[in-house]
Every structure is written in C-alpha cells, then in structure tokens.
C-alpha cells in the first residue's frame, strides 16, 4: 500500500510542476535558485561546515577529549536534565491549553492565547530577569528561600524554570490551529458511543494530533537545549554545576579554547540537523495523509 501512496505523491508533485501558465522563463527560475543557494551557503552551509572543521582542527583525539572533559559532561548532563523536565511539563500544558482553546468557549479565551505567545514577544534576557526578581536574593521570595535553604537562582531549578518559560508556546501553538481545524465532532461521536474522557483523549484526540504533537515536541526540545539568554541570566555560570551546553561553549570561547568550544558547539549543531531531519520526516508524513484525503475528496 505504501508503494501506491508514494506513486500518488509523485503524480501529485508532477501535477504541480507541469502547469505551464504559471511558470516563469528559465533564466528567472535559474537566477532565483542561484540567489537562494548563494544566500544559504553564505549564511548557513559555510558556518555549519566551519563549526565541524574548527571542532576537528586539533584532531579527533582532542575533539573527544573536549567532550569527555568533566565540565563538558556536566554541561551536557544539565542540558539534558533541563530538557527532560521542561519537555513533559510543556507536553501536558500544551495539550491542555490547546484542548481548552480549540474545543471550549469561555471568557478570556483571547487573553489566554495572547499569554501563550508572551515568551515569543519577550526577550529571553527579560524572562531570566523576571525569575531573578522573584527568586533572587533581593527578590520577593529571596529571604524565604534563604531561610529554608532552597536555591533557585544560580542553581538547577532556576535553569529549569527559565527553560520552561521560553519553550511553553511551542506545543500549544502547534496544536491550537490543528485542533481547531479538526473540530470536536469526533470527540462528541466518541461521547455518544459511550467513551469516557480518558478513552476519548487516548483513542480519538491524541491519535488525531500525533504529528502536530511530535513536531511541537521536537521544536521544544531543540529550543530547550539551545536556549542561551534566559538561562544565562539565572545560571551564574558556575563551572561543572550550573553551566548548560550553550553557556559552556561561551566560556570556552572566551578562554580562547576554540577547538573545545567548537567541539561542544558541534554537538548542538548536530542536534539542529537531527531536528531538521525529524521535522521534514514528520511534515512528509502529515502531508501524505492530507494528499490522500484530497484525492478521495475529488
């Protein structure tokens, strides 16, 4: 069956390419392609290649050494911890918020949508500062935290909080339009057929939004691991303790340890490439479903 789907996809692409009336003369097409390729190589391919060349400049041994350095390992570990905590929380929040916005009508709905967008609008540095103001030494809860011997700022909780703040729109933003387009008829059908809330969520809603959800998770993960600004403000840059990977790269770079800085940076670059690959795979999967839908509609 998958073979027929692929061939359908091909004929679909051909159909788009064949329409002569809307195509430009050859020289226009080629110069547009050339301009975009030139631009991409200048701003994307060359820097990306530079990251990997610089990382391997002192040989593969030095590259590995930079990665297994205790400070580097601790930075990697902290980055993974921050992502591993913020991801599930964002997953639950994203699905809940998208569900509420797409399937119910309530007062203040537009305010909620605006609030979800807030981290996109606010500079990450300000996001970090907010937490310093709340939990820092001179902040609202500063004294209470010191009295009870809890550390938020310049410690892991602060980093996790900042990461959650900058990543929480991704999943909700991805799901809201999808769920709005799908409507709530299928859920109502499940309800009439006797399914309870959990059964509806697991058997109807989640399977319907799985590609959008996965897409949102991947974007959230990429952002959580790559976040610099907000985390930088709350982290305190304590080596081996509160440094995430992006912060570790900065420290190494400022110490003129280029090869090590680029080695750690190459991990982040690799993460970015992986994200892109997964993203296009998911988009391909999702569009495949849509194309089949459209063909049947015809």
């Amino acid at each position: 069956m998958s073979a027929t789907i692929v061939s359908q996809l091909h004929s679909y692409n051909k159909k788009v390419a064949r329409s002569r009336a809307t195509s430009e003369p050859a020289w226009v097409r080629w110069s547009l392609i050339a301009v975009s390729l030139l631009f991409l190589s200048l701003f994307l391919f060359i820097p990306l290649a530079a990251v990997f060349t610089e990382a391997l400049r002192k040989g593969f041994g030095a590259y590995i050494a930079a990665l297994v350095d205790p400070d580097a390992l601790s930075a990697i570990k902290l980055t993974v911890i921050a992502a591993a905590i913020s991801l599930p929380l964002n997953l639950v929040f994203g699905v809940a918020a998208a569900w509420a916005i797409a399937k119910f009508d309530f007062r203040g709905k537009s305010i909620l949508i605006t609030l979800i967008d807030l981290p996109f609008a606010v500079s990450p540095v300000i996001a970090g500062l907010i937490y310093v103001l709340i939990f820092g030494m001179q902040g609202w809860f500063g004294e209470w935290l010191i009295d009870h011997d809890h550390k938020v700022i310049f410690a892991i909780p602060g980093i996790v909080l900042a990461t959650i703040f900058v990543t929480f729109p991704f999943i909700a933003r991805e799901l809201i339009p999808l769920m709005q387009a799908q409507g709530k008829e299928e859920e109502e059908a499940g309800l009439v057929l006797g399914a309870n809330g959990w059964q509806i969520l697991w058997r109807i809603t989640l399977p319907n939004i799985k590609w959008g959800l996965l897409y949102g998770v991947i974007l959230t993960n990429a952002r959580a691991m790559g976040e610099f600004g907000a985390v930088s403000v709350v982290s305190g840059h304590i080596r081996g303790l509160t440094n995430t990977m992006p912060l570790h790269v900065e420290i190494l770079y400022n110490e003129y340890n280029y090869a090590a800085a680029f080695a750690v940076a190459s991990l982040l670059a690799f993460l970015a490439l992986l994200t892109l690959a997964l993203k296009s795979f998911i988009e391909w999967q999702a569009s495949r479903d849509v194309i089949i839908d459209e063909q049947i509609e015809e």
Partner: protein
Amino acid sequence: MSIEIRNITKDFGSFQALKNISLDVPSGELVALLGPSGCGKTTLLRIIAGLETPDSGNILFHGSNATERDVREREVGFVFQHYALFRHMSVFENVAFGLRVRPKATRPSDAEISKRVHKLLELVQLDWLADRYPPQLSGGQRQRIALARALAVEPKVLLLDEPFGALDAKVRKDLRRWLRRLHDELHITSVFVTHDQEEALEVADRIVVMNHGQVEQIGSPQEVYDAPASPFVYQFLGNVNLFHSRVNEGRAQIGGIELQLDAHQETKDSPAFAYVRPHDIEVLKEADGEHAFEATVNYIHAIGPLVRLELQRADNPELIEAELTRERFRELSLTEGQSVFIRPRNVRVFLNQVA
C-alpha cells in the same frame, strides 16, 4: 422508545435558539425536523442526544425524565452531519468503537465484537470495506459506515443531523430510500434534521416544521403539504404563488376576482395573503366569467413531466407560476407572449396580522 419534549428553551447569548418547544415522537416512528438554517432544529437534536443542555424544559425517554441523564447513559445513536468518523481507525474499528470502550463487565469478547461488526457492515452493504480508512471512502459510504457505527451500541433512539446534506443529488436519492427501508426493518425511533423539504416529505412518517426556534406545524407529510398551518409552512414546503388580497365577511378579493371562503366569516375588510400551489393554477384561453384574470405568458419551461409557466398578471406586476401536464399544455398550444386567463383553485387565505 418514545421521546417527549416538554417546554424546551435554549439561548446562545442574546440569540434565542429554541422558544418553548414541545413535541412527541411516538415509539418506532421516523420523524423529520424540517426548517431553514438557524431555526434551531440541530440544537433540538443535540439536546435530545444530551450534547447540549436546555436552559429550561424536560426531555422524557419512554416516560422517564432524561434531562439530567449523561450522554453516555441515554442509549442514543447519533449520526453527525459530516459523519465524524475516526479518521485514524479502519472502518471495522470505527464500528467496533462503541463496543470496545465499554467497561470490562459488559464488553463483548473480541470474537463477539467481530461477529457483530461484520453483521452491521452487511446490514449497510459495505462488508468489503472493513479494512479501509475513512478518507478512502466516498461520501455515501462514509454516511452508511457512520450509521453502522451508531447502530453498533444498539441505541433505543437514532438521531441524524442532516444525514444527506453533504452528498450529491443522485447518491442522496438512493440513500434516502435506503434509509427508509432500513427504518422499516429495524423500527427504531428515529429523528432526523433536514432543510430539504423534498427529503422530509419522502422519508418521514411525520414532519415537524420549525422556524425561528418555534414549531410551526406537526403532521404527516400529506397534512403539512396539503394543509399548511401557517404562511411560513406554505412557502417552505414546495412552490407557491402569493397574492395580496383583502378579506371581507368570508369573501376574498384577489385582483379582479372574488372568492368564497369557508373561514374568516367575521373578518371586516382586512388585508390578507392568498396562497395557491402552481399546479392549482388553471390556465384558460378564454375568459370564464368573473373567476379568472388576465395574464401574459412570460416563459415556458417544458422540461420534465410538467410544463412550468411564468405568467405576468395584466393588472399588476406580480409574477405567477403555473404547472400544467404536458397533455393540457399541448391542448392549449401556448406560446411565449400570448395572452391567457388564469383561475386559481384551492386558495388558502391567511390574514395579514402585521398590518
């Protein structure tokens, strides 16, 4: 199972969707809720299903109050306008859904589920599609799968929202006859919503005509078509000619002619509307005393079993539609632009309350 609807009211903000609706659906009947869009018919259907809650009033299933009963406990089958099939499940799984989500104690075994699903798929004549997915089906097939899915939970009441609305004309005709036959086989109390009068007249045992959140008339297809209770029902069901008229002591004046009425004996010179179906307009070549008025033939549409004429009254700019049999049309040998005389039969007069 019979359904009784008692004084149901429902507002959406400032919009009054249902205004004090009461009606009965006797056990085993197929009832159509008919009305223009926005008349509240779908809201009423959703209230019966339990998908909306009424602001006031009660729903009784088989005499017991079901107003507060949860959707899941109402034992209704609901077919959605756009079918709402679960797009990521095969046809088989769609139909099996209602059985699979039952609590363990009442859930049939896999073998039993499989048997029942195939039996239902045979009933809707689509057993060969069991492994397909909803996007791979045509509209008519989706409709029948949605019906099989609704029937799988053995509902006591079947509710259908615009069941044929999204289908093309040919499929729609076939499917509505099929639904009628299915209902005659199963005898399950059914309510369907439609805006298509032809559909309601052909399929339903009983029609509830609704407008602006109110019931205009309840009756058999013949009753609502032959004896509409209000001007709205007259205009909504089938084509009709409207004449401005004056009524005085049981006599109605339309143009140059005067008609004797059975009703309105006490009425003193008040404005009224007179309704006549196009097939009740008699076309004559010669004037026939006082009971006909003059008109010109504007257009002739001679397609189908009936010939439709558009006529222009001589005394005012109103247009009149008439339908003749082909035989009668040949007898008259009419041409466009010709002058004729017309005589309305079976005139219904409603006083103009507003003026």
